[in-house]
């Protein structure tokens, strides 16, 4: 089963590893010596093991654990079952059964993965097989809990492209036409002193002084002040983002904050009202007052507040958990649609998309907006990045999408480290949440509705999600830019974009048609939202993985080239066409078509 599904899109099969061609002979020397190894990857242990496949039952085989992955291959079964799982994907490891249990395969090991699957093994009782495997797995899957380094820091991989150069904040501001008369770039946060979870470079209203910014920072949760994310090239309307104001139970006012928001509004001459999109449900925003937060009250003149009713990280985590229950290992058959509905996953996706559409619609009509939630690093990142994807076709290119992730997610401190829990054994941490996955799902929904509007394909989205967990690249490690700087991620690890940009053609959507000034409005309706089967149900052997249409398009492209070549050869050989003297490979003119009416097909 695993071999049927994994090669299509598993994290290891996506790129060509150089270590795959060891001969069968060497198998005798060392078990699975022909398994792929990355530069810097080292074998730690191998064992005979039984894989309890949820689809076809027990499979005998060998397992190798390295400092990067768990690799399994069956020994007797035909066809061979293999799979390999980066250890970073593992969220928990547990022992099951034992001496008191009956039966042959009673020493079990249960591995829960972050990517919608579980693995179950049985081991021999002799020689403390299971204890060895368990201990090693536990150590290497959760290196940070054991004083070890994440694999990204051990990897010796080299790529043609250096993905760390993909995003240059200054360059991206310039692309947007900044700085300009109304907006300036400030280096105030260069050393992350104003706000340690913000990027070093910030775009702020021209009229706001650094002193103003400091004052505003005191009134915004964790100093995350309103700053510019995107500006409309013609209408000058902007998307700004921040965290909640520290209003508290007493309903505090802060005139600096009020004035600052008004400066944002003024920066775009045409906006009479600044629209504040609070991503939360109204009640949650009210409840936040108890912990010192809250929302902009009526003191903010020239501003309107809209709640977008998107739920918090805990709700999303539970929703995904429910989704996993109905798709893995078996897809709920009897009441599929109502079960899917009861997970609310698609409903949440719909709300996020609908919120982003509202943001995009406001901005494209020339009105500036401010987006925030509580801390401004989860829902806010979803909303700003999705609306920017709708508004700006640059972000729909392969390069632009990388810039978008670097800027809105990594730059503005979405807490990848805490949300994913890289290398951390504490699987039940309340900080875990699939917010980024949900965003990628929204992007996927958009690519479904507009199959020609995105330069990248599903494979890119899957690759991003796989390496969100794998810890092979430094890209998604740690919670914010300052932490990545402190850990020298850029110098000590490789960027995911190095992998992607060294093999661009694999991630290109063949249907892409550039349309620079078009705003995409997806339909955020249950009528169109679909479960992303290629991701959530990818481990099921009854799912075919190739995209038939995309594949066919590539075949036709190859055919076209073949014909063009043939035609060229014929033209060179000088044999004149029988019925016409046309030579250029252009579509036949009407007269030509008439000429060939008699040609039998």
């Amino acid at each position: 089963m695993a071999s049927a599904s994994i090669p299509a899109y598993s994290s290891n099969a996506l790129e060509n590893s150089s270590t795959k061609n060891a001969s069968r002979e060497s198998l005798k020397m060392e078990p699975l010596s022909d398994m792929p190894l990355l530069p810097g990857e080292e074998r730690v242990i191998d064992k005979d093991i039984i894989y309890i496949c949820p689809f076809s039952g027990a499979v005998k085989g060998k397992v190798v654990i390295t400092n990067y992955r768990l690799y399994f291959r069956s020994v007797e079964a035909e066809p061979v079952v293999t799979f390999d799982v980066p250890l970073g994907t593992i969220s928990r490891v547990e022992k099951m059964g034992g001496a008191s249990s009956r039966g042959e395969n009673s020493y079990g090991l249960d591995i829960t993965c972050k990517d919608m699957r579980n693995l179950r093994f049985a081991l021999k009782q002799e020689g403390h097989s299971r204890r060895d495997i368990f201990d090693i797995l536990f150590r290497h899957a959760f290196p940070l809990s054991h004083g070890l380094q994440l694999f990204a820091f051990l990897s010796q991989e080299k790529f043609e492209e250096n993905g760390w150069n993909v995003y240059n904040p200054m360059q991206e501001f310039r692309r947007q036409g900044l700085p300009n008369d109304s907006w300036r770039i400030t280096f105030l946060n260069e050393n992350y002193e104003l706000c340690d979870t913000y990027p070093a470079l910030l775009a702020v209203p021209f009229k706001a002084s650094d002193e103003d910014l400091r004052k505003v920072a005191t009134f915004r949760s964790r100093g995350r002040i309103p700053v510019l994310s995107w500006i409309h090239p013609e209408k000058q309307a902007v998307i700004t983002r921040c965290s909640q104001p520290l209003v508290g139970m007493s309903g505090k006012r802060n005139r600096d904050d009020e004035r600052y928001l008004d400066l944002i509004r003024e920066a775009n001459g045409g906006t009479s009202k600044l629209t504040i999109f609070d991503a939360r449900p109204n009640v949650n925003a009210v409840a936040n007052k108890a912990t010192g937060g809250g929302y902009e009250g009526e003191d903010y003149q020239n501003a309107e507040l809209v709640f977008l009713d998107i739920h918090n990280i805990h709700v999303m985590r539970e929703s995904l958990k429910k989704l996993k229950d109905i798709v893995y290992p078996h897809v709920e058959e009897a009441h599929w649609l109502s079960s899917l509905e009861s997970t609310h996953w698609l409903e949440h996706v719909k709300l996020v998309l609908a919120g982003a559409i509202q943001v995009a619609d406001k901005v494209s009509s020339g009105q500036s907006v401010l987006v925030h939630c509580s801390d401004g690093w989860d829902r806010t990142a979803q909303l700003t990045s999705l609306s920017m994807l709708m508004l700006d076709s640059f972000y729909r290119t392969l390069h632009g999408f990388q810039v978008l992730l670097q800027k809105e997610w990594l730059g503005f401190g979405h807490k990848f480290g805490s949300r994913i829990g890289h290398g951390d054994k504490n699987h039940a941490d309340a900080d875990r949440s699939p917010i980024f996955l949900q965003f990628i799902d929204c992007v996927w929904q958009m690519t479904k509705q507009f199959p020609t509007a995105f330069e990248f394909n599903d494979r890119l989205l899957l690759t991003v999600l796989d390496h969100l967990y794998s810890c092979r690249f430094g890209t998604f490690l740690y919670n914010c830019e300052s932490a990545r700087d402190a850990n020298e991620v850029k110098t000590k690890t490789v960027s995911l974009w190095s992998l992607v940009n060294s093999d661009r053609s694999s991630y290109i959507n063949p249907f892409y048609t550039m349309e620079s000034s078009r705003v995409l409005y997806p339909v955020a309706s249950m009528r169109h939202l679909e479960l992303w089967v290629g991701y959530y149900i990818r481990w099921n052997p009854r799912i075919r993985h190739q995209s038939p249409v995309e594949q066919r398009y590539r075949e036709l492209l190859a055919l076209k080239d073949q014909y063009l070549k043939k035609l060229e050869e014929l033209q060179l050989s000088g044999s004149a066409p029988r019925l016409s003297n046309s030579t250029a490979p252009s579509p036949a003119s009407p007269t030509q078509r008439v000429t060939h009416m008699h040609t039998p097909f």
Partner: protein
Amino acid sequence: MFSVKPLKPTFKSYLPPLQTELTKTPQPTINKLEAKLLPGEIVVNEVNFVRKCIGAESSRDDLWGKLICTNFKISFVTHDALPQQKFQYANRLLGEHDVPLACVEQVVTVNDAKGKQKVLGSNQKLKFNPTELIVYCKDFRIVRFRFDEAGPESAKKVCLAIAHYSQPADLQLLFGFEYVGKRHCAPSGDQVNGADRAGGPQTPLFDRTCDWDREIKRTGASEWRVCSVNEGFSVSPSLPEYFVVPVSLADQDLKQYSGFFTAQRIPLWCWNHHNGSALVRMASIRDPAQQRKLDQRICNAVTRSHPKRGDVLKSDLDKSLPSIQDVQAAFVRLRHICVIEPFEESEEKWLSSMESSRWLEYVRAFLKHSAEVVYMLEGKQASVILQEEEDRDLSCVVSSLVQIMLDPHFRSLQGFQSLVQKEWVMAGHRFLDRCNHLKRNDKEEAPLFLLFLDCVWQLMNQYPAAFEFTETYLTVLSDSMWVPVFSTFLFNCARQHTEHSRDFARSKNIPLGRDKALRFPPVWDWSQQFTLKDQALFNSPLYVGKGGPCVQNGAVKSFKRTKKNYSSTLRGMPSLRNGLLGEHDYFPRRSSLVLRLRPDFSQLREAAESPSERFFGDWLSRPPDLQGLLLPQLLPSHLKLWRLYFLRWVPEAQISRGGPITAFHKLSLLADEIETLQRQLRQYKGGAPPSSAPASAPGTPQPEQRRMYFKADTPRDPPSPPDYLSSSFPFSPVGNLCRRSILGTPLSKFLSGAKIWLSTETLASETL
């Protein structure tokens, strides 16, 4: 688009500001508005100054014109252009705003000043002057007209005429008879509206022995023969005159057996697998005393026609599939949630409403059952007899699906049309009753054919390159059921077709000549409805035709599959067993691993999958051969709502400048370029057709005709998708779905209760 709730429409808002009316509808033009009539079509009633409602909230975009009821259609003629609409797929038999009377599901008249409304039936009275007419259509459209400025009496007359003429009392009152009668008399019998006929291959109608002979030859069914025992319909009233039976059964036997079968329907051959197994369909045996003996004889005969004397398996469809009433009920529920319920309100429960409609569940059941029959024919090399009480409904769906999965010929356009002709029209599917054209018996109404098309769409959605035709084709084909001029959808069986057209001709004194009957055109002559240019929308740019381009290894794949040892695989599949997956769940809860594990792997594997599951699993684990066997993927998550068909009229669900059509557009440009290159290559080769041309697939209309609707006129710089593309293309929701709430009652409630009020003149008037 997003959750800004539309204002609840009030009746005030339906009254347009007077000034705009005047500027919009200058008097002189109104008078020139005339209905475009077909041969045999006559105007029954008409009314001027009618407003066709476009938007639900305001009357700003409404159109002014004349509403006409003819003996064929409801026609609305106007000089106004639709707002925001840039594309409309034109039908040669119908105008942009026309609705054929056969497409009318329900006629509702309203007088909002008096707070009255009534569902109009045939021959009914109307005690109020309607201010509004709402027509619910069988193709899911809802069309609304306002009579605020129209003459009250003529408005009433038109409404009554529509209600009356959409429920004809007799088959021969269906417009097709007048039309075909007039066309028959006209000098150029085949020309309609100057229709240009495609010179491509004709679809075999299977009303002649030679069509059957060719099919026997094509499938290599040497042990089967065409029999003419039913010539003149002397044996069975609902069977065709010619059909195919085992060689070992003599005409005498057949005549003798016929009496024991329901409606004398002796078993019919459908198709032969190249391995020798055959697909046969038959009705139930009426006489229990004869049951065993007859079953045995039929089985023996079928076995004898199998070159390897393979097994014969019988599949009782009545026991394993939903009934036609179930299908109809599911369809009604699905229509309700798709077009009648308010869009926003139904969003929250959309998925569970879809589930409780059970439509997709039934689609899946038919696909699954067909796949199991495929396993018997291909995997077990056994012949299969499909048995159904009358053999005229469920067997049509299953036998056609099985053939589509097994035989790539039926995935070409001509092949598909011949399949419908063979397994539906000739096999005697009661189209007249199932479409309920005469609105006589609602219990007989059932969208079996649409269900079949939906199943085909599911396969097409999973394997788009395997089909020569597109979902637009399937949709248009389905819509053609409501244009009552085609032989395909008008009759219950071949005999009814023959007899009624003869009687009609006799009663109208139409000289018949050699034919001895009026010839109703089959729907397959598409030029009757569409220009050749528009027909190009039927052609899929993805299609891998017979010997189509296979670029990866250059090998031309043949239809015949190499035999595989299906037992040699470990790749287990979750069971397909009736959706009861929990029972063999090898992924027990954490604490119970030990108890649920069985020590022996081989046993475990055996238990996990049946041979048919292994067959499906094995097939799924390999890349599909698009010119070979095609099996549906049947996880519930694989089955999708056929959005183009069910949501095309819903304005809120339309993705502007998006949807699958935009990728289709891009593909078409490439396919067109390739075609052009092929044409040029042929010039060099002096007319020898390249063997791997997708355009050389059967069914290509004419050599000089370019296959693609979207053409690459600037091959180096493919343009962006045209603005008019949307997820509804080539249809448009503008003006075709106008929901409203009536007197404050949500429309949904009104309709679901509508049947109860049918006889009452008014609904208890709710105060405004």
